[in-house]
């Protein structure tokens, strides 16, 4: 009996309370009330009337057969409230996960494995920044009203779900249910996006490289200005007005004014002010922090170039109108980061993609203008080595005096474990991210309160480029290239956001925190990269360096994830010289898988192989023949594509690995940034320039031992290695080494459950093609949305089409979970829901298969249901 009683007790306890990360399965799997109730949310949506307490007037929501939503209201308040309600109806789990990520509350749901993420986010300060942004937002402002209405809509849906008990399965399984939504949480999600697009660790990487390779070699191979041919969209001439001032504590994230809190203590002996190479302590701090960050989930910090957007006008476009295409490259997940919707109210009328958790359309169009955006990739995070003293605990030296660090205390709830306390220390520069070896703080522009939503609301109401630019003046982070086209036939780009400048020191390295190297200001808005109606009638941004070498301000180095310009080169090559382009022309370009670098390098490789001493093996001859007949297209059926891609990786390794080994570059600290297998952008650019003859080959081809090598020699060696690699991995004849056998796309589920993702599936493209597939041979980063907007020259309504690889409903049991993937994969576009001024056939949800919700003000009925 003792055994039976013990087993019974353990079983019931585990089923009731869970064990470690295992949720309480008893309640979770209860057939009548657990995760199974999520089936209700998986039912196909049907037309119905719903009571939404927060509404002021009735709202109409219509859905196409594919689930694309159109929301029409009589007030701005109601349109944003309805958007919150609809977002929560279909994406509540995603929204809750995103806000938990930014607020440092993942471990509360998932257990100790997520504790490092929570600690990092709480140190970085997305929550503190969001709280400050909300405090600085006037409640009566359009942004304040939108945030409040949106939060009410989300909460109205949460109340309905709570009444029905039809929680998404993730909540029921975990037995942790969402707390009410507040405007701060929308701003936290804004911060999460900012971090993913804008937070980089480049100074820490440079510190590691300089410590191992040395200063000269580091700056030669990771230069400020890239070595290869670039295609800036703003080639100049440039203005050089004075910087816009920025308060020294603008990014401190301190709850209160840092200056007011400083203790007026007697200045100690002034530390040396001469800048020097990173010390051992700085290198230790940099390596420790890099190692911590590298263990965080991929995508949390910015590492990949993202996105294409271009526009054309005048004779380049059929009818002499203007046309715009945008495809942001982001993690492709299920559910997607995007929710497609059209929003119409007397003061607001726009269509495009929204971000669940945030009110407003981020990429899209209204009746007069269209816009898309790409990440600028500039350096927005500077790291400061704070001067501290063992005799002065919790103090740092700045501008001639010792100051007290501010402290913020947190308690992190951990599922299956005891709460963990965390104290975050703040200096004038920002949060201290590590104290290993050296106290290191980060001064990140994403921590400067940014009125992004207000800017987007202004963009949504703009009807010309002047209004568009004016609206974006308040956009500080993440820095984005906003591409523009309008009904009058104009096009342009403005890179909105903060570009921090220092008066002293090299900002690509950790800087002394004593004050002399502080951020002096930011590039004035009028001098930021921008172009309007270029004479060539085309403008394109694909994350390439937006300006030329003569630009008078610092934007970042070649290691700041500026794209190597291969996509931009390909896009400009396609667009320039064409006339009368149509939407189909832009769609063909968005689907292009031509590898621009292959067009430059493969002829050099073939020449090197033909001239190489000694015979090629039979497989090498066959592989060479494939390359000779290749059209540079990375299609799934191309074996030459596999040979090319494998060769390039082996070429980088052959060129630089001897130096990496000799210098003991600490790749383990951050493999994504330091390992050659990640093909650092700077090295790809270097090798391109050296191989193509643009610049003399570097000493990199010479081995550390002094033995001389030439580019053809290294290419011959790398080619042999690549063929051997492919033979070992794929077997068979080279003709069978098709790209689809190596390269796939995979869209993981945000839940982490492998069975709820899509793929992996053999895919075309690579990291450098316009149809980009980034993140390795199993790619999960790429065009997360494709959009083409055309304004006919006759002044008629725009035609708008778009598609994203996912579905509008996060419930995997729903027919709207992944229904859009096939269209995206096959290169088809769907009509975007029209704006009020749009004509027929623009996907307003009124056609066959349309579903209508009528949202009415009023209390929830006793048995509310959306089924």
């Amino acid at each position, binding site marked *: *009996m003792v*055994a*039976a*009683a013990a*087993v*019974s007790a353990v*079983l*019931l306890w585990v*089923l*009731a309370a869970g064990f470690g990360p295992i949720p309480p*399965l*008893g*309640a979770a*799997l*209860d*057939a*009548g*009330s*657990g*995760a*199974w109730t*999520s*089936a*209700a949310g*998986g*039912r196909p949506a049907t037309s119905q009337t719903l009571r939404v307490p927060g509404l002021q007037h009735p709202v109409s929501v219509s859905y196409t057969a594919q689930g694309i939503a159109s929301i029409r209201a009589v007030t701005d308040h109601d349109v944003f409230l309805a958007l919150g309600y609809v977002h929560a109806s279909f994406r509540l789990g995603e929204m809750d996960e995103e806000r938990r990520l930014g607020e440092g509350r993942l471990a509360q749901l998932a257990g100790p494995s997520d504790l490092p993420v929570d600690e990092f986010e709480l140190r970085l300060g997305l929550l503190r920044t969001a709280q400050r942004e909300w405090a600085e937002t006037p409640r009566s402002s359009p942004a304040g009203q939108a945030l409040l209405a949106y939060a009410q809509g989300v909460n109205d849906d949460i109340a309905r779900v709570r009444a029905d008990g039809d929680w998404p*399965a*993730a909540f029921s*399984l975990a037995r942790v249910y969402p707390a009410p939504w507040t405007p701060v949480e929308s701003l936290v999600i804004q911060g999460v996006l900012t971090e993913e697009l804008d937070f980089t660790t480049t100074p820490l990487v440079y510190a590691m490289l300089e410590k191992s390779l040395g200063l000269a070699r580091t700056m030669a191979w990771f230069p400020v200005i890239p070595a290869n041919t670039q295609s800036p969209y703003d080639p100049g001439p440039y203005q050089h007005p004075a910087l816009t001032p920025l308060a020294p504590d603008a990014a401190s994230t301190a709850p209160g004014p840092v200056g007011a809190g400083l203790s007026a203590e007697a200045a100690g002996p002034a530390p040396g002010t001469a800048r020097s190479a990173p010390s051992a302590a700085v290198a230790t701090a940099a390596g420790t922090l890099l190692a911590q960050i590298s263990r965080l989930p991929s995508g949390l910090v910015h590492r990949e170039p993202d996105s294409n957007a271009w526009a054309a006008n005048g004779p380049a476009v059929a009818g002499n109108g203007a046309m715009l295409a945008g495809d942001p490259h982001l993690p492709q997940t299920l559910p997607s980061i995007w929710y497609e919707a059209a929003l119409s109210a007397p003061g607001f009328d726009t269509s495009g993609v929204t971000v669940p958790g945030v009110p407003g359309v981020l990429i899209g169009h209204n009746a007069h203008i269209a816009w898309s955006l790409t990440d600028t990739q500039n350096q927005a995070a500077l790291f400061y080595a704070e001067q501290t003293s063992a005799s002065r605990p919790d103090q740092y030296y700045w501008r001639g005096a010792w100051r007290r660090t501010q402290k913020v205390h947190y308690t992190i709830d951990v599922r299956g474990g005891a709460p963990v306390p965390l104290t975050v220390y703040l200096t004038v520069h920002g949060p201290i991210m590590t104290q290993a070896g050296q106290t290191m703080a980060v001064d990140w522009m994403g921590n400067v309160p940014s009125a992004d939503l207000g800017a987007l609301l202004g963009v949504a109401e703009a009807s010309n480029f002047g209004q568009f630019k004016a609206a974006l003046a308040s956009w500080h982070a993440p820095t984005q290239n906003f591409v523009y086209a309008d009904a009058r036939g104009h096009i342009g780009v403005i890179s909105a956001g903060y570009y921090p400048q220092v008066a002293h020191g090299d900002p690509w390295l950790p800087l002394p925190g004593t004050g002399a190297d502080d951020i002096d200001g930011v590039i004035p808005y009028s001098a930021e990269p921008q172009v309007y109606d270029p004479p060539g009638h085309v403008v394109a941004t694909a994350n390439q360096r937006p300006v030329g070498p003569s630009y008078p301000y610092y934007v970042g180095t070649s290691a700041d994830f500026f794209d190597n310009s291969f996509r931009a080169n390909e896009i400009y090559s396609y667009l320039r010289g064409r006339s009368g382009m149509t939407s189909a022309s832009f769609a063909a370009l968005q689907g292009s898988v031509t590898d621009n670098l292959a067009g430059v390098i493969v002829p050099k490789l073939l020449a090197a192989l033909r001239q190489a001493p000694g015979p090629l093996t039979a497989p090498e001859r066959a592989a060479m023949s494939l390359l000779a007949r290749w059209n540079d297209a990375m299609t799934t059926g191309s074996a030459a594509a596999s040979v090319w891609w494998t060769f390039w990786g082996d070429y980088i390794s052959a060129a630089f690995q001897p130096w990496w080994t000799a210098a003991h570059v600490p790749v383990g600290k951050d493999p994504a940034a330091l390992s050659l297998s990640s093909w650092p952008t700077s090295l790809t650019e270097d090798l391109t320039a050296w191989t193509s003859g643009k610049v003399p080959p570097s000493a990199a081809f010479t081995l550390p031992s002094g033995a001389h090598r030439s580019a053809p020699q290294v290419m011959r060696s790398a080619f042999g290695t690549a063929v051997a690699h492919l033979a070992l991995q794929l077997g068979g004849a080279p003709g069978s080494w098709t790209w689809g056998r190596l390269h796939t796309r995979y869209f993981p*589920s945000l*839940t982490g*459950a*492998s*069975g*709820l993702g899509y793929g992996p599936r053999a895919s075309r493209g690579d990291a450098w093609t316009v149809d980009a597939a980034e993140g390795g041979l199993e790619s999960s980063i790429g065009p997360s949305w494709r959009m083409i907007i055309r304004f006919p020259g006759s002044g008629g309504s725009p035609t708008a089409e778009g598609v994203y690889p996912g579905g509008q409903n996060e*419930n*995997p*049991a*729903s027919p709207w979970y992944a229904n859009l993937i096939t269209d995206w994969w096959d290169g088809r576009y769907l009509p975007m829901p029209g704006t009020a001024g749009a004509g027929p056939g623009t996907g307003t949800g009124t056609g066959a298969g349309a579903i209508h919700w009528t949202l009415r003000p009023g209390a929830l009925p006793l048995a509310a249901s959306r*089924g």
Partner: protein
Amino acid sequence: MADLRRLGKKGSYRLGSLAGGRLGGAPSPRSPRRLGQLGRAPHGPTLGPPRAQVQFGWWLAVVVAGVVVIAVTAEFGLWFVPFLAGLVIGLAAPRAGWRLRHTVPAVLVMAAAGWGAPLLWQAVRGAPAGATARVVAALAGLPPHAMIGVVFTLLIAALQAGVGLWLGHAVIGGSRSR
């Protein structure tokens, strides 16, 4: 001769009936005689209806009742009722003359059908139960197949019931040994 207290009662002349309520067969060599009870005649006549049919009827009735209770209480989130059902069966089995070959299938069927009924009801009402089963399996870290999700869920119920039954048996066995 049968237990005098059962004179005139249904089944009181059943062959081999014991005061302890066992369903036929020779007395267990370990079963103690209780004060006031007569020993069981090893081969007494059976004058009631066939034993197997009556017992199955009771068995079925108990199982159906259990299924209903488990299914209804599941709607209210009372996920532990399968355990209680197993416990009750385990405690009552000796008095009802049920043996393991009757109680084990009873509680397993009771639990599986008790939790299976709400799932079936969902499917009948048009909810995507199969797709949801696949989701449940995937979120639980299992292969993402609908049948696995269903089986895993029903196994949790069956496991509870089995352990409850074991505890019930153990309690009764422990009290009888004192």
